[in-house]
């Protein structure tokens, strides 16, 4: 897949980002510039900017990969990532804008009038941000490897450096139009190749995706392995091999007996047409008909589905880089309209990954064997569309993927660096610079050390932590006067702590099997109710800790801006 076009596309995206960042300094320097400038921005542009920042590598590459591997159950992932905005719209969008909070810790401070709660919120923002950044860097490495053959660490480092330089120079983040453009670029980069893919599928006689029987190689296929894997072979198959298989160097014909086989990296196996596709150890071997059914792919599918729904629908509102975009709306009413437009834009985008996943099942089943299902979006265009056109389409997809890594990582890095600089290092320009480096280095180190996980899985874990900590804080903070400082603190620590532990266990020690594995890999179904419960019960037990200004805060959060009422004089310290 190595191609000059692909390299060119990545270079163009990176250069454009750096240049826009450099010019961005002159265009906007402070938060308030950003705020004032955006007053002229319509909800549609604002919504495009939110979409551009929100659609990360997980949406662009990861969703299609998980659908290819696990089937219909994974359709819930994009549904939840969109539906989360509906929950956000009806429960928090307008009040959150009216609070005037610029970050989640700002909101915690404004509502609970407590620096202690603010600090806990800051730590959680940093954790969620890092958890979200790590897989972006990991998959940037994979994409760059796919396009240029560079080692896996190069892509992650490239994205990290570009993002850090950009954030340090102060550009990129503040420009609504750039992020808005990113949305339309990503949409085009998925939609245009998909049209050609579907034309090719049509010309192929529209083969049925949900066939009886397991996936087979449609034609003779050479599979190369970027990493060491263990594969399960269901039926003895004769292949042509080169490289180290089961610990012995092979160069020539080989019969892969039924059972498990160790395939070392850089090995190549050539399968004849019609051979069954062996699956990498940790992916379920499903027939295509099973794959097309919901509640079929994973262990404990019903629990996993509900937990995923809870995490995605409630976690969206707690993402650090989403909230800040609401500040760019002039008032609460515009915040609602913007959110509605976001729903429409995300819905349009998420129609595409499912089709990629299904087409991948037909035409790139070897990804089930290498375990790199995240690569399906990058592999399909050149597989189905030959020649220069295929290479150009691949280049377009690679450009879209890099745009996804860069835009999301920039947004997250600014949010995380802002919080580290403000709340941990004590504020100031110097602190922000140090914070930016910290904000990027930590997840980059994690990305290099942690085992390679599916990008959408890790992002799913970030949603679970957000849903178990910030969702109760926001929802109860906005609608319930009796929330107390102690209650909020207890809920944040319990919910965020439990979800964080589950995530750490899954990433460091996992994957675990059985019920424990399901509970740890999808913690939201138990951590979210616990967090809400703790927040409510502790608040009721400590009625004296209700913040003194809660009545004024409620006026501020809920009255429309047209009314001339006293809304208090709190201002976010980061603005």
């Amino acid at each position: 897949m190595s191609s000059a076009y692909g390299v060119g596309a990545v270079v163009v995206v990176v250069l454009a980002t750096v240049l826009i960042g450099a010019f961005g300094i002159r265009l906007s320097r402070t938060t308030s510039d950003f705020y004032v400038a955006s007053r002229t921005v319509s909800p549609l542009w604002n919504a495009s900017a939110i979409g551009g920042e929100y659609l990360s590598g997980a949406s662009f590459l990861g969703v299609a990969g998980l659908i290819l591997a696990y089937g219909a159950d994974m359709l819930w992932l994009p549904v939840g990532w969109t539906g989360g905005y509906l929950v956000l719209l009806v429960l928090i969008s307008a009040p959150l804008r009216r609070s005037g909070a610029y970050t989640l810790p700002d909101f915690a401070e404004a509502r609970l009038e407590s620096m202690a709660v603010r600090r806990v919120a800051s730590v959680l923002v940093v954790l969620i941000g890092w958890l979200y950044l790590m897989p972006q860097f990991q998959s940037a490495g994979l994409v760059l490897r796919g396009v240029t053959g560079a080692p896996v660490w190069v892509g992650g480092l490239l994205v990290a450096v570009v993002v850090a330089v950009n954030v340090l120079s102060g550009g990129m983040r503040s420009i609504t139009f750039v992020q808005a453009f990113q949305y339309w670029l990503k949409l085009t980069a998925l939609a245009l190749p998909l049209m050609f893919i579907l034309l090719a599928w049509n010309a192929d006689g529209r083969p049925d995706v949900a066939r009886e029987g397991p996936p087979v190689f449609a034609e003779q296929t050479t599979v190369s392995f970027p990493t060491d894997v263990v594969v399960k072979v269901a039926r003895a198959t004769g292949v042509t091999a080169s490289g180290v298989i089961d610990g012995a160097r092979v160069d020539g014909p080989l019969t892969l007996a039924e059972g498990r086989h160790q395939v070392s990296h850089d090995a190549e196996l050539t399968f004849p047409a019609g051979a069954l596709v062996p699956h990498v150890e940790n992916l379920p071997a499903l027939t295509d008909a099973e794959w097309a059914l919901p509640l079929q792919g994973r262990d404990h599918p019903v629990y996993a589905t509900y937990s995923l729904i809870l995490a995605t629908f409630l976690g969206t509102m707690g993402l650090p880089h989403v909230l800040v975009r609401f500040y760019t709306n002039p008032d609460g009413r515009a915040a609602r309209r913007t959110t509605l437009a976001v729903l429409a834009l995300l819905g349009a985008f998420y129609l595409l990954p499912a089709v990629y996943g299904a087409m991948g099942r037909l035409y790139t089943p070897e990804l089930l064997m290498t375990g790199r299902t995240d690569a399906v979006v990058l592999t399909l265009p050149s597989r189905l569309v030959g020649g220069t056109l295929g290479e150009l389409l691949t280049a377009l997809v690679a450009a879209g993927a890099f745009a996804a890594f860069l835009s999301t990582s920039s947004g997250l890095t600014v949010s995380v660096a802002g919080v580290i600089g403000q709340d941990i290092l004590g504020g100031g320009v110097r602190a922000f610079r140090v914070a930016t480096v910290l904000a990027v280095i930590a997840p980059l180190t994690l990305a290099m050390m942690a085992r390679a996980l599916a990008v959408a899985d890790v992002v799913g874990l970030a949603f679970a932590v957000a849903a178990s900590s910030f969702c109760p804080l926001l929802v109860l903070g906005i609608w319930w006067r009796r929330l107390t400082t102690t209650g909020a603190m207890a809920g944040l620590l319990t919910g965020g702590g439990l979800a964080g532990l589950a995530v750490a266990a899954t990433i460091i020690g996992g994957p675990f099997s059985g019920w424990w594995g399901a509970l740890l890999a999808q913690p939201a179904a138990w951590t979210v109710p616990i967090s809400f419960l703790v927040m409510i019960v502790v608040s009721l037990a400590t009625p004296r800790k209700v913040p003194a200004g809660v009545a004024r805060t409620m006026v501020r959060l809920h009255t429309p801006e047209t009314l001339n009422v006293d809304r208090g004089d709190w201002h976010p310290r980061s603005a």
Partner: protein
Amino acid sequence: MTERRAGGRSAERRPADRPRREVVTSPRTLAARRPRYSLTREIDEQTQLGEVYMRSLVRTQLRLGLFVCTLLGCVVGGLPLLFLLVPELREVSVLGLPLPWLLLGGLIYPLFVLGGHLYVRSAERNERDFADLVDRT
């Protein structure tokens, strides 16, 4: 307007012309009292009346939000349950696509937008009603 202001100014200049103050000995408690404050002032000063109005606004908006969330919960929470209880539904084919794929891969998104649109309309109406109510008095 100008006349009144001019009158006021002349009154300030000649304090001696003001009517004499009289002590009121019997307040007219039976007469209907006019509200002393505008409602925004009631809200600003957090009087009981102001709090009642604020609570009613918050409650109305919360009720609307929870209604939409409940509907959403029924659709989103109900689908896996439906597929669990009636497994045959998973294999039903509509328009050449399996039903779960048609719903989760396509139709649910316009439903979200529709739900969001109806919510925005109602929430804005609630706010307009509240603003009219508070501004009128």
